[in-house]
């Protein structure tokens, strides 16, 4: 039997403390050259896609803009459109919120990106919807937690109806008959639902993929059901082997309910890679990078999120604060996804850990915020990535570098060729669209097959 094929994406370094900006070789987070470098290197290595995250409000901490991590990023879709000019094959995946956008506009933009890139567009659907972010938008429009996925589902349904409202061959350009569009090939859409009303004839030709590839990033039961019903790819946080397997089984297990095969949804956790000539050297590099990611100021700010009070009087290299957390101050930081309901058990547990290991504040934060990731020689990391995929802990990974823009050069240069040697990763692109790279059927075909699958 042929080996299961690995899918790999690259994540442009994000607006969070994974990204180390203090190094002399950490480049611009906004110059196009940085984005171009990563996208082109990833394409040279035949990766599946380039990925951008999104956040629609600058994060705040203690009532002021959070200034310790990278701040600021370009707008997702114009940046991907520009990357389409300097790449030919690699997929272009963008995170776009379903709460603060309207489907008519989004459907036009994604159809346009798919046309302009020759079929390489992907939409990572996120549902973040807090009032804090809503303050940047008309009517402060935000949604209660429970309604986010209902709206997201409706937004996707309408977008799909709009993409399907143009036939693939609608542009006839029949000069003699004076018919630019083939009669009947573009049909009006008329949708009236709980969250979206959209009526009219859509403006934009269908892209080569029919629909862009849909990603979903969200972890709740609702989020997982939404992914199983709707998504082609899940971007997950479960990057350790056991957690990955559990998540993989859970989400793939939900597919049958929706009449979908296990192959039709790819699960790709985010992960980091630190390489060395020896395992020890890699471990030492990883240790240094973790210290760069958790500066003394970042360590204190992290504790403040849990304690809910100002802790700047404490030394990050010293012991944990002796004051008790403020139970009502838990939203001292805004614009993050993480929420802690009651800080007291967390604080108690951290005090025990720090006492047992003799950890300072900074060491504690480094430990409790570690997300794993692969550390070792190129051969060891290639072995591990392949094992995860062959043993169904994932279908591949989204690689998150810690440095802009060269942070993944070594992984692309050394680990990817080893995966290719094993026959687990492509040596050439076999198709032109992102659907081709991911082995996903064109949506018309997938839907044509669906009744048969349900009947069986």
């Amino acid at each position, binding site marked *: 039997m042929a080996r299961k094929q690995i899918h790999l994406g690259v994540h442009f370094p994000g607006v969070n403390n994974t990204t180390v900006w203090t190094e002399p070789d950490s480049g611009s987070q906004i110059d196009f050259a940085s984005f171009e470098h990563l996208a082109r290197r990833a394409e040279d290595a035949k990766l599946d896609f380039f990925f951008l995250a999104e956040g629609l409000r600058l994060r705040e901490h203690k009532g002021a803009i959070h200034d310790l991590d990278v701040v600021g990023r370009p707008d997702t879709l114009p940046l991907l459109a520009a990357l389409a000019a300097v790449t030919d094959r690699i997929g272009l995946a963008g995170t776009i919120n379903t709460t603060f956008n309207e489907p008519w506009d989004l459907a036009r933009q994604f159809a346009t990106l798919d046309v302009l890139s020759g079929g390489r567009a992907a939409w990572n659907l996120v549902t973040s919807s807090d009032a804090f972010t809503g303050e940047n938008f008309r009517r402060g429009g935000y949604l209660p937690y429970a309604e986010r996925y209902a709206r997201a589902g409706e937004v996707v349904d309408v977008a799909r109806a709009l993409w399907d409202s143009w036939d693939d061959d609608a542009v006839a350009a029949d000069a003699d008959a004076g018919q*630019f569009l083939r009669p009947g090939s573009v049909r009006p859409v008329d949708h009236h639902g709980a969250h979206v009303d959209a009526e009219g004839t859509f*403006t934009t030709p269908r892209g080569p993929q029919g629909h862009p590839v849909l990603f979903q990033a969200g972890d709740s039961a609702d989020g997982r059901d939404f992914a199983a019903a709707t998504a082609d790819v899940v971007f997950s946080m479960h990057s350790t082997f056991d957690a990955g397997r559990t998540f993989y089984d859970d989400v793939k297990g939900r597919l049958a309910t929706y009449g979908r095969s296990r192959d039709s949804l790819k699960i790709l956790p985010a992960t980091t890679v630190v390489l060395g000539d020896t395992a020890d050297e890699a471990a030492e590099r990883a240790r240094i990078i973790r210290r760069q990611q958790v500066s003394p100021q970042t360590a204190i700010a992290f504790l403040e999120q849990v304690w809910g009070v100002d802790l700047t009087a404490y030394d990050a290299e010293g012991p944990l604060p002796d004051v008790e957390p403020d139970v009502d101050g838990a939203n001292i930081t805004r614009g993050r996804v993480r929420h802690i309901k009651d800080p007291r058990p967390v604080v108690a547990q951290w005090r025990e850990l720090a006492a047992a290991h003799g950890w300072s504040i900074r060491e504690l934060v480094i430990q409790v915020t570690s997300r794993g990731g692969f550390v070792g020689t190129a051969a060891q990391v290639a072995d591990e990535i392949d094992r995860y995929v062959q043993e169904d802990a994932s279908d591949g990974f989204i690689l998150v570098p810690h440095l802009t823009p060269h942070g993944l050069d070594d992984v692309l240069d050394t680990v990817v060729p080893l995966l290719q040697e094993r026959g687990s990763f492509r040596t050439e692109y076999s198709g032109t669209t992102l659907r081709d790279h991911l082995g996903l059927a064109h949506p018309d075909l997938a839907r044509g097959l669906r009744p048969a699958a349900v009947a069986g």
Partner: protein
Amino acid sequence: MSPHAPNNLTALHGPTALHLGVDLTDAGAHPAAWRTSGSQAARLFDVDRLVALVATAQRGRLDFVAFDDGFSLQPHERGVRGRLDAALVASRLAPRSAGIGLVATVDTTHTEPFHVSKALATIDHVSSGRAAWQVAWSTEQAAASAFGRKAPRDAADAIEQADEAADVVGRLWDSWEDDAEIRDVATGRFVDRDKLHHVDYEGIRFAVKGPSITPRPPQGRPPVVVRADEDGEIELAGRRADVVRVHARTLEEARDKRTQVHDAARAAGRDPRDVIVLVDVFVVLAQQEAAAESRLWLLQDLEGVEWQTDSLTHVGTPAALAETVAQWVNAGAVDGFHVRPASLSTDLDLFVDEVVPALQEAGLFRTEYPGSTLRDTLGLHRPANVYAAATA
């Protein structure tokens, strides 16, 4: 004497005084342009066609190319129907072009100023300072229904909303001071948060907190383009526009419109020299006047009706068009023209290869871009940041 420069083509102003933009919408300004041979209509949405058109405009050192847009399908049954998102088209064309400005039309009636602001800022970043925003609004119910909304009451209502949107978008561009990113390793701070500003905009239609998620664009504020003919539009242009597109059939009418725009700018407390007024000119070109007329007849024949234009329309030779351009500019009636080729596949080449060299040889038009940004080309200074000024 060069064959391009007729004797009566002289320059009263230097080559920096004339500005020429070109419209790359659809297959050209004439509704039947797509039906002529060589129109490449089947490739209308093919990006390589657009890349080639931009390269042509850039070869002519034109100020900018512009793309129209809208949320509803063009109603004209026999014309081109369908369009790509103009902001994404402009962004897609940025990396493989240089010098030339990229003007994207973006609506204000059904969009979020926060999204518009970061989209234009990003085009400006990926083009190293060549983006511009043509502010659009819509009163049609067809566009409103696409968003499940009621259309604005009337044009005045839509223009007021466009005015507010342009105000917020500009503030969001300024919400990052230019030197906000400090990367101060000693204190662990990536930005100086005193240089990031909540815009705290509380308008009639919008309340936007800010700051933008995108750092200030290279041009500070990408130039704002407004199409203005009616009073309300001219007021809007006077307040917000860097480039104003007007319609005029005669030199006197153009001069009058330019004066109105200048008055509106003055009334808004601005220096009229900061506002560039361009007249839309529809062109059908051929080496002989009779051939140009035949080309128009052919287009009209295909369309079945006479071509109704609402501004200066030149059907004739490139040399004659160069003379008209020179005459209007030398008379101080306009700062330049927004060229609307009847057929992109024919008229753009002739404009760039025949009209532009004539103007260059007469010393009226640039032979190289003066700098790297669109503001450099337009001779507009980089605007001060309203928030930096407030804290200084």
